[in-house]
């Protein structure tokens, strides 16, 4: 008696959805076991996580705030992953975007009105993140350097550079020696809705970017070429697709939207550049799971981004209310990603139980 694995010919949308849900449930089950080992009732803990993030008005506002960068970065990553370009460097693309945004905001901000300076900062952040994203693409195509390694390493370089800026040349005169730049002028700050940290502009921006990228992937010539490159590079060569140019544009856009997230964090929440861990709470990495849970469809990252933002907020909550360690959320995220990737196996394969015949 044995199990045999056969390739699955066709996966219906329903099957896809069922596998997605089962993977999530299996992931939650595994998370539950971790809670159990800590001596915490898993049902209570998971309930607590979702109650804190989606169950209360206050929590939901926080969830929205955190969903913005996740959606922006996640949709850009989905674009890159469609081309099978494994960009692990969104974290640094975010930081470089924030650097560009800070420079523009501090230098030009005082003399320009808000409706000019804010778009300028976002444009600058897009270009900054985009240029940083170009580097690994050039390295890969011109020198054959694996993009996983180069994007990962560029994260450290960008983070150290931010540290250098905030303790060195850009250290704020008004900050009493703290490693911050000066605060952005008032016109370079995004307004919040009521008594919250939610910026309506940013939410609209994130949703628009995700929808635009979905349109780009599935409706434009560029998107078609990206998908051909990702699915079959040999066929792309045969079809005369310009590898270099297409990959560069793709990474410029993918890095650019991460840069937008950086400026968003800066101009809505932090208002000054500070240590990299403060600017981004690992959004560049969490967004990898967001892209994956969104099945690499930039549009779906709106939902998966919201879901993971909820987990982050809920994780913070149980950390405080139940005394769980801060890394709980990482465990949570990691386990969910592992089960999602395992779910992919069942989309492509069927497992049959078979009696062995001699």
């Amino acid at each position, binding site marked *: 008696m044995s199990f045999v694995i056969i390739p699955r010919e066709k996966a219906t949308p329903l099957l896809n959805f069922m596998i997605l849900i089962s993977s999530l449930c299996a992931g939650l089950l595994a998370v539950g076991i971790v809670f159990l080992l800590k001596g915490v009732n898993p049902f209570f803990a998971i309930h607590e996580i979702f109650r804190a993030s989606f169950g209360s008005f206050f929590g939901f506002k926080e969830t929205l705030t955190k969903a913005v960068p996740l959606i922006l970065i996640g949709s850009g990553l989905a674009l890159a992953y469609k081309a099978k370009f494994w960009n692990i460097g969104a974290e640094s693309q975010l930081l470089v975007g924030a650097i560009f945004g800070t420079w523009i905001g501090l230098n030009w901000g005082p003399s320009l009105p808000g409706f000019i300076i804010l778009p300028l900062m976002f444009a600058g952040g897009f270009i900054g993140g985009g240029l940083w994203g170009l580097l690994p693409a050039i390295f890969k195509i011109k020198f054959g350097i694996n993009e996983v390694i180069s994007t990962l390493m560029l994260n450290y370089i960008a983070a150290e550079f931010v540290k250098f800026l905030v303790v060195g040349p850009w250290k704020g005169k008004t900050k009493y020696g703290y490693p911050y730049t000066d605060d952005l002028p008032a016109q370079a700050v995004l307004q919040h809705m009521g008594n919250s940290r939610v910026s309506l502009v940013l939410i609209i921006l994130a949703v628009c970017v995700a929808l635009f990228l979905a349109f780009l992937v599935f409706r*434009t010539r560029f998107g078609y070429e990206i998908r051909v490159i990702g699915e*079959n590079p040999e066929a792309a060569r*045969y079809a005369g697709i310009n590898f270099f140019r297409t990959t560069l544009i793709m990474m410029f856009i993918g890095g650019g939207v991460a840069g937008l997230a950086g400026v968003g964090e800066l101009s809505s929440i932090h208002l000054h550049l500070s240590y990299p861990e403060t600017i981004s709470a690992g959004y560049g990495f969490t967004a990898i799971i967001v892209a994956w849970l969104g099945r690499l469809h930039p549009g779906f990252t709106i939902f998966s981004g919201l879901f993971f933002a909820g987990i982050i907020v809920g994780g913070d909550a149980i950390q405080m209310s139940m005394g769980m360690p801060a890394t709980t959320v990482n465990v949570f995220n990691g386990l969910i990603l592992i089960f999602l990737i395992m779910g992919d196996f069942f989309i492509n394969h069927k497992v049959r139980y078979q009696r062995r015949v001699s």
Partner: protein
Amino acid sequence: MERIEILEMKDITKSFIGVKANQDVNLVIEKGDILGLLGENGAGKTTLMNVLYGLYHPDKGHIIVNGKPLYLRSPKDSMKAGIGMIHQHFMLVQKHTVLENIALGFDEAPFFFPQRYMRKQIEEYSQKFGLNVDPNKKIWELSAGEQQRVEILKTLIRNADLLIMDEPTSVLTPQEAEELFDILRKMINNGHSVILISHKLEEITSICNRVMVMRKGKVTGTALIKDVSKVDLARMMIGRELSGSLEKKEVKPGKPMLEVSNLSVNSDQGLPIVQNLGFNVLWGEIFGIAGVSGNGQREMVEAITGLRKSVTGSVSLEGKDITNLTARDIHNRGISHVPEERIKFGTVANLPFFENSVLKKHHKTPFSNRMLMNYPNIRDHAKNLVAKYNVDAASISVPVKNLSGGNIQKLILGREISSEPNLLIAAHPTYGLDVGAAEFIRKELINCRDRGGSVLLVSEDLEELFQVCDRIAVMFEGRIMGIVDPNNCNIDGIGLMMAGLEQQNQGENI
């Protein structure tokens, strides 16, 4: 351990989903033999050898060594029985040294100082058979010939008596091939035996003492080399009744459409594989390229279609130079290409049928403008292809990986022909297809010609070439051995040219 005095394979039958790769094959090899196994690609040589090496289990038949039956469950068993195989593509770890590669999976070395033991073994065997390699060099530093020697050493140190070599000279320079033959001679003097898979007559007659010819999974002859002529062998290899050509319109061939002159192209390994090749394809003709695959056909086609840079020479279309332009430029100038590996190059398996139906012309109107894809037009186009070329697809939205080989080929051919190319280059378009699909595709090739276009057809299937072509060139080791008129030529001559003999009016002949 007992050495292999005589090995027999009896009534070996092996089929893969519907295709009989081997049918009642018998083979005998004795100590000291070099047996040449001759046949075209797809004749079943490699399948037979994989059975002997324990990679495949035969459906029927058995193997007898020295009168006793031998059961092989895996290559481990066959190695234990003294059978070693050297594949066409070497199985070596590039970044490890020669010594490490030879030691890999070798469990007779002592626990202490295994390196010293292995080094001694390597030296001993190197001297005995003239296999000179430096055990400390890394594999990537070695030439193909040296790598092959490492493979031979590997099998000899594992006490192989019978060595199977799959197309051993295909990666070697002529001098290296000579050196290999010296090594093989030393081996048989030591009581080893060798099975040499090859399609080169010259090679078989110069080194083997016996030969066995296969065609379409069956043995068509076995003989001692001294008893047969090359013409006999060529006939055994090719020998079939050729059916008449398919119906074609009278088209008077016109001016040259494609002119190739002095073309030289390198292989992926950087070795020259197409050398000073020249031919013309005229308006309104189907020009065939015959030959066993691996003789530079693929590289030649890639060089013409812009997928590979040529080293020297020129290619021109309707008198305009198109040498080394990009694939997209060449396509835009009216050359369509049906690539030889339809799944690897011609389609994107995970994308739906309709997206595949515009691959390579997705950048043209009416399928897209500069920015946006026009999916309604693309879907219409896909529906037309399905109707016109009888593609059997559940819908135009299914991923191409769900289609059968024949239907994928119809999709590719339809896609390439529907843009009404001046020149259609088709490489092995009917390979692996059933009779009906193959005939349909041949007729489409003829339609393309009757419409006034030209076709360059690269194929291994002589029957196909004779059915559709107006002229046939035979390619061997990157050169044109001769050009013949299919209505007026003898088949033995083609067989000899395919095996590298008898050069008739090389190059241009119009």
